[in-house]
């Protein structure tokens, strides 16, 4: 006797759901939407009621939280799911994680929880384990089953991104993690509470397994409180509409949403094959490798994403060619990949009042086993999979649909963003021996977007993980990092991808390390490296977005400058120039194009991170001169840059000199003519290099790895017409 509908077990219900979709192609086999047909307005009312319940849970619950990421940056989410695990609707917040819930609840069923430990009214289940469906350690999920007269009719789910996960490096995202054991505290699905209250031992675990136990406990209380509120509201709605209507209604909402998405694609996009590729370097050799021999190497990750828009409006993604799995931090399993992919779907076609997991039913993935997107090793690290693989998954939709919408004439919907974010965790020991830890997430809270076919990108305007971007307040964030005095939070001139419409300018945070006491280390994670561009292709002749920039300046003369009442640099461009001019002195300057190890810092050190330099659209030489003039007037771009890239000549007031500009632009077109070659000649030269295997070690290793995969092998051999026996 199961706890499901008419005494069925959850296993049976899950199997039936799979069977019905497999047979009919409709979610839960709903070929007819009876409730919709009978009374569309009533179902809409039902749907909006459920949504209101989720939003109420979030808005009320979030205030309990301790992490700025949850409260200020909205990195939390409350969801209502069917007993089979499909999310019906969700509050705003960390929207991607909606797609993980079906996987986690499937695990809970397949682990046989219904029998042991049992699923009862008032129980609380928790997990953050990617092996069972979560994206990475920092995303913690809390589940409260909703029972009606002994039947499990739905789940109330709360989740948020916590500040500290107890990993090998402090903070919540680690760029230094060869395996699951260094990722931090991973807890598989487990029953952590009863009677709507967490057990005492659960709080103790937080206190002992993470560096910020008190904060994490408050976040846990937030998730439980919100989920229980949602649980109660849901039961009121059951009373109002009747349990039969509820049971069927939540399923019809899902199936209708699926049809709605398909309709949007068919009416706005173009069927076909779209190709996106992302490269990202992982630098472990020599330092991580010292401790973990299997990680004593660097990787150039290859993340292709071939998207097909099928005739019925569905998407099929082929990730074949992905770098093989290994002992590095940027991996994730399918749930995480789908989570990141959905972040590309919401703004481009899935913007509806109820975000849910109907997307799962219109998106197919091919992810070869043994790769960084489908690891065979159950202990593979997933610490930063979200940040890195979102490049190819999320952006896959931004790029694919931007091209499709451009083709179809819906330019206004084009959304060509190349997200690149940066953040850090830190821990230290104060002068009095007090141990503490903290971190800063604000540059994930608010990104810029790329140039569109009709306008420039804007800075600090969007956020990939969260539709409600928010960079937070220094006066709030410094509460969690006493030693970090923010002396610059600003935009950086010239820091963007260029184009006819340029990308949004990047943001920069500059911090002065103040009296750290006995010890302080900072570890930076980044989702885009300056060694490569954020994605491999610019849009229609524009340049791709730029990677992140991190500087550590040790043993500086900052304290001296301050004492003398002299000004000081507040962004990395100024820092670089001041160093050159000798106005700023530093015994040691460390520059990192993306992630950093744990870096020891002392009083007076400068620590700078920057990101958000987004992609341009179109040929820079076609940029409107009025836009160039504005850029120069406000110092967003400097005269030398607009001259070299935009062929625009300005006078000392920054006004455009028309004649000179036209001449220069013509000259630059001629220059293109002079220094470019026919494709065939270029091909011949490039081919020679391939034949001679003239690759740097990293590139060589990348090819050697991905050539194992038939699809890339075919493309590579065919492109360069290589002999059968060509091998790396």
């Amino acid at each position, binding site marked *: 006797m199961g706890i499901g509908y008419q005494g069925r077990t959850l296993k049976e219900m899950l199997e039936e759901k799979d069977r019905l979709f497999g047979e009919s192609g409709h979610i839960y086999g709903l070929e007819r939407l009876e409730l919709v047909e009978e009374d*569309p307005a009533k179902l809409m009312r039902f749907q909006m009621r459920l949504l209101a319940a989720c*939003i109420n849970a979030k808005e009320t619950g979030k205030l309990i939280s301790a992490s700025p990421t949850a409260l200020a940056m909205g990195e939390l989410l409350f969801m209502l799911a069917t007993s089979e695990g499909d999310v019906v609707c969700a509050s705003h917040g960390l929207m991607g994680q909606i797609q993980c819930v079906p996987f986690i609840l499937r695990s809970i069923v397949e682990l046989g929880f219904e029998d042991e430990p049992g699923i009862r009214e008032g129980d609380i289940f928790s997990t953050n384990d990617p092996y069972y469906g979560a994206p990475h350690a920092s995303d913690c999920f809390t589940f409260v089953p909703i029972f009606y007269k002994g039947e499990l009719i739905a789940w109330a789910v709360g989740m948020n991104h916590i500040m500290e996960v107890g990993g090998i490096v402090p903070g919540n995202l680690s760029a230094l993690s060869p395996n699951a054991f260094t990722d931090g505290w991973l807890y598989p699905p487990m029953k952590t509470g009863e009677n709507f209250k967490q057990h005492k031992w659960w709080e103790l675990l937080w206190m002992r397994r993470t560096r910020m136990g008190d904060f994490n406990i408050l976040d846990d209380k937030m998730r439980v409180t919100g989920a229980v509120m949602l649980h109660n509201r849901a039961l009121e709605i059951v009373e109002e509409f009747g349990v039969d209507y509820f049971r069927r209604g939540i399923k019809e909402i899902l199936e209708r949403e699926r049809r709605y998405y398909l309709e949007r694609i068919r009416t706005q996009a173009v069927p076909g094959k779209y190709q996106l590729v992302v490269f990202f370097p992982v630098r472990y050799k020599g330092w991580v490798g010292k401790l973990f021999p299997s990680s004593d190497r660097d990787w150039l990750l290859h993340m292709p994403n071939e998207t097909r828009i099928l005739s019925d409006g569905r998407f099929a993604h082929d990730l074949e060619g992905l770098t093989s799995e290994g002992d590095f931090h940027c991996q994730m399993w399918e749930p995480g990949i789908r989570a990141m992919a959905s972040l590309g779907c919401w703004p481009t076609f899935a913007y509806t009042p109820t975000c849910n997991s109907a997307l799962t039913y219109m998106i197919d993935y091919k992810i070869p086993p043994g790769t960084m997107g489908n690891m065979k090793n159950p202990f593979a690290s997933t610490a930063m999979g979200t940040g890195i693989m979102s490049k190819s998954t999320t952006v896959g939709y931004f790029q694919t649909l931007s091209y499709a919408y451009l083709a179809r004439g819906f330019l206004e919907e084009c959304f060509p963003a190349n997200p690149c974010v940066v953040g850090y965790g830190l821990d230290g020991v104060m002068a009095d021996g007090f141990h503490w830890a903290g971190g800063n997430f604000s540059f994930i809270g608010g990104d810029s977007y790329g140039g569109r076919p009709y306008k420039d990108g804007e800075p600090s305007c969007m956020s990939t993980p969260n539709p409600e971007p928010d960079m937070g*307040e220094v006066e709030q964030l410094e509460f969690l990092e*006493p030693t970090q005095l923010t*002396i610059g939070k600003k*935009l950086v001139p010239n820091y963007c991808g260029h184009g006819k419409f340029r990308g949004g300018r990047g943001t920069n945070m500059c911090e002065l390390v103040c*009296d750290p006491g006995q010890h302080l280390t900072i570890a930076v994670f980044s989702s885009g490296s300056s060694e490569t561009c954020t994605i491999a292709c610019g849009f229609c002749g524009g340049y791709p977005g730029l990677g992140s920039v991190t500087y550590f300046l040790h043993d500086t003369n900052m304290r001296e400058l301050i004492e003398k009442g002299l000004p000081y640099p507040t962004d990395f461009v100024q820092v670089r120039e001041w160093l050159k001019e000798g106005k700023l002195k530093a015994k040691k300057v460390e520059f990192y194009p993306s992630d950093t190890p744990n870096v020891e810092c002392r009083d007076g050190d400068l620590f700078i991170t920057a990101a958000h330099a987004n992609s341009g659209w179109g040929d820079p030489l076609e940029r409107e001169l009025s836009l160039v003039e504005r850029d120069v007037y406000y110092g967003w771009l400097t005269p030398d840059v607009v001259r070299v890239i935009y062929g625009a000549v300005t006078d000392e007031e920054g006004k455009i000199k028309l004649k000179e500009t036209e001449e220069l632009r013509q000259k630059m077109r001629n220059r293109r003519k002079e220094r470019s070659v026919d494709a065939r000649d270029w091909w011949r030269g490039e081919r020679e290099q391939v034949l001679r295997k003239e690759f740097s070690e990293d590139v060589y290793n990348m090819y050697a790895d991905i050539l194992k995969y038939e699809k890339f092998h075919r493309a590579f051999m065919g492109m360069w017409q290589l002999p059968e026996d060509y091998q790396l």
Partner: protein
Amino acid sequence: MAEKRYLLALDAGGTMTDTFAVDQEGKFVLGKSLTNPENEAFSYIASVEDAARSWGMTSADIHQRALSSTYTGTTMLNILLTRTGSKVGLLITRGFVDMPLMERSLTWLGQSYEDILHQQLHEHNPWLVQPEHVKEVTERISVGSFYMQHHYMPGQVVIPLVEDEVRQGVSELLDQGIEVIGILTIGSYVNPIHEKRMAEIAREVVKQRGVDISVVASHEICSLPNENERLKTLLFQCYVAEIGRKKLLSVEGAAKKEGYDYDLLTLLSYGAAASIRYPKLCEAVVSGPVGGLLGGRIVAALLGRPNLICCDLGGTTFDAGLIAAGLLLVNKEPDFAGHRLRLPMVSIDSIGAGTGTVIHVDEATKRINLGPESAGSAVGTCYVYPDITIGDIDLILGYLNEDYFLGGKVKLNKERALQMLKERLAEPLGQDVYDVSSKVLDLLHSQMCDHLSSMLLSKGLNPAEFTLLTYGGSGPLHVWGLDRGLMLGAVLMVPWAAAFSAFGCAAAEYFHRYDKAVTFFLTPDMIDDVKMYQAMGLSAAWQELEQRGYEELEREGIPREQVHFRHGISARYIGQISTWEAPVQKGRVENIEDLNRVIESFEKVYTTIYPAAARFPQAGYQITEVYVEAIGEKIKPVIPRYPLKDKEAAHEAYKGQREAYMDGKWIEFDIWEMDLLQAGNRIDGPAIIEHPMTTLVIPPENYVEFDEHRFIWYRRK
């Protein structure tokens, strides 16, 4: 000189300026004039003149006898929306020059849920300060941290102020011809020393230059954390308030010509009346919808019903505010016109729902979405709007009278509305037009109900303990939907809805609110002496704010003996980021019991919202803010009583019958004229009571009663 016994209150809306004049017995008359944005002094006088007429007096007669005149409305807001504010110069901490451009990425405020997801629509606000008018100054003050007992204390100067940069910055700004200077430094809410010095220097330089330019430092108008929110508040003050004050002074000038003796008063965002010379006039920018709530508070007191939900349903938005235990609830980080501010504002939640709300239908998937667009005063396809709206539905279902909209000034086209609803709603959904239309109304009603119940539940309040008070044009038209969807204590309407918010102004308490950030940690392991040591600081903070209250009110002509105070704190468990505001009984902490009572007041608020499991006293408490409200006494209007007539309404009030569609069938509704109904009358449903400004729909199962104040009680049979 005439004896002072009149109160004047004016609400200058976008189109009309309403006057509400009260004499000492509380008898009141109403006046109207067309708002004249170019010359508000003119429409002010015209409106008072109109009111005076009904007493057979002139504007001068009333002004000479007026104890106070309170003028509020959209003056300030228009300056913001029409971008006609001052040319602002800003001095800011080095490294934060782009803060006004970046706006903390809050580029989605006020958008609908769907538009927020559709990130293509995110956008920055028009600049309140030009980038070239922002100057950086070297300085930095520590804001403290959770670990402050091991590191810097809040307010510690880490980077000293470089004064020459201030002088240079100011003179550059003056060269650039700016009209007002704002100053913001990080951490000024814990230690304003740098802002103070910068302001001094700026004022010196301004003086030397011999120009008349006001200098505003952020801590002077807001000494609370969050630099972006404080910056917006500062910019509102600089961009809007200073120009707005000039406009208000011209209105005051006109009033004085008529013989008015005192400062003109205006309404502040947290529901207080204050002199237009009040320094923090930015608090008057967002006072728009507050009037109604103040009116509600009087009604609440008068009727002895301390819990009220006040709803203003207009053409475009559905605004709702709460009065709980007789108090207005205050939001300290309100979003307003796309900006997030840091000032206390009576919390009013709005959703885009009204008679103008546009109906979207997706044929393929039979989805119905309401809004966010609205026809506003264009009503719908029945008037001059291209898309189908709720108004069209109200019309074809027979609730609205096509010949009596705005008292017949506007003729509505029922045929067209019906045609369009068929084409765009019924046919795509394959439904009967009347049936599906009434279902769409249900959808609208349930969205409004969810909005209200979320408001209540998120504060731990129970609808059954609340009385719903609706005003605004469309409130009575849809009140039946609200009543059905919520388990409310009672439902109430005022017949003179239009002037209700002007009435609210007249009823406004004269007080100032002062907030101050503090940092007191009370950990479980702390011994009482240490706790008490901090508690002294608490008392001191209250005392400091009381002092400011005394001084400012005195400057506005209110003697100390007429001033009294309300005290409160904002607190949280250590580690939390949000705080909860709790009023305290006693504004002093003299012993450990007092202190415990302060903590209890926080726990009380917290546990009314959250279950016990959400408590975390083990972490200890942090008191982050204290506030004081300094109240000066001021006479209030009295709502008149009328002799009760019999239940049976006078015959001339009866206008005949009309068919209207409700719950799946056509029903004959009696039609009544509201102005002809009297205290004591009872009207049974099915009935519709019409008024030039509004329409009240009463289903068969309901009836209404006009009480001795001619308040309309909506009841179930």
